[in-house]
């Protein structure tokens, strides 16, 4: 185990961001897997997407090309833009479905959705 560096020597590296993203992703996973309410599950999914965005941006920021070239590598940013787009679309449709499911089945409790059980 390496010694903990003093606060002056500490610099934020890619690993910090990746660890943070992993933590948030894990929390999102727990929420998405364990929550009963459909909206809460969606919250977990959004958190997971956010963590992924953070990872992508960190990679973009800490890539070697950033230092070398004059222009920043913005592919990661473009990727995040698409993720945001898809997240917005997904949220709209998923929430509409949650409301619809409530109208049909009078509940948003995911445990009660047993249509496939036959």
């Amino acid at each position, binding site marked *: 185990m390496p010694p903990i560096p003093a606060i002056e020597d500490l*610099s*934020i*590296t*890619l*690993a910090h*961001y*990746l*660890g*943070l993203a*992993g933590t*948030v*992703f*894990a*929390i999102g996973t*727990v*929420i998405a*897997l*364990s*929550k*009963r*309410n459909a*909206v*809460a599950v969606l*919250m*977990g999914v959004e*958190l997971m997407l*956010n963590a992924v*965005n*953070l990872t992508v*941006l*960190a990679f*973009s*920021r*800490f*890539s*070697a090309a950033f230092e070398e070239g004059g*222009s*920043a590598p*913005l592919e990661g*940013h*473009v990727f995040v833009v698409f993720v*945001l*787009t*898809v*997240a*917005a*679309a997904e949220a*709209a*449709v998923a*929430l*509409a479905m*949650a*409301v*619809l499911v*409530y*109208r*049909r089945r009078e509940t*948003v*409790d995911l*445990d009660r959705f047993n249509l496939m059980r036959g």
Partner: protein
Amino acid sequence: MILAFFALSGLTVASALLVFVARNLLHALAFLVLSFLGMAGLFLTLSADFIGVAQVLIYAGSISVLMVFAVMLTPLASRNNGSTLYVIPAMLAAGGLASLIGFVAIDTEWDERKGEALGVSDFTTTVAGIGDLLLGRYLLAFEVASVLLLFALLGAIVLVQERRRAGEEA
């Protein structure tokens, strides 16, 4: 910079945890928005100004409002934020996932640029670059994404209309 990173990450992780813990769905929603805002701050530390602001606009401003509507359209009884029986396996799986990611993050020798994440000099504009890329190399993907948004819009409208018809029949 260090302070900013740790404060923002602390805010993000703590609010994300509170989303899990909160009893009331609307409390969870409030914490979720806080988490989104912390995440936007983290984006800014990565000199992603456009993405940071877009994060605020889309997540904190719009998706949270969508969720508010979804919560309000469901009755009072289903506004709790309870967990299912899967909470223990889910936590185990997530813990494994987090440790795996952490292990990979620490263990890999990244070909990365060292130093402080945010200096003044490299906080350049990203908007023009993103715009060039979106309308240049990724034009097809951009168009597909716009079509996806359109279909999401139409899909939501169709769902709503079907719901209304079902309500009239009932």
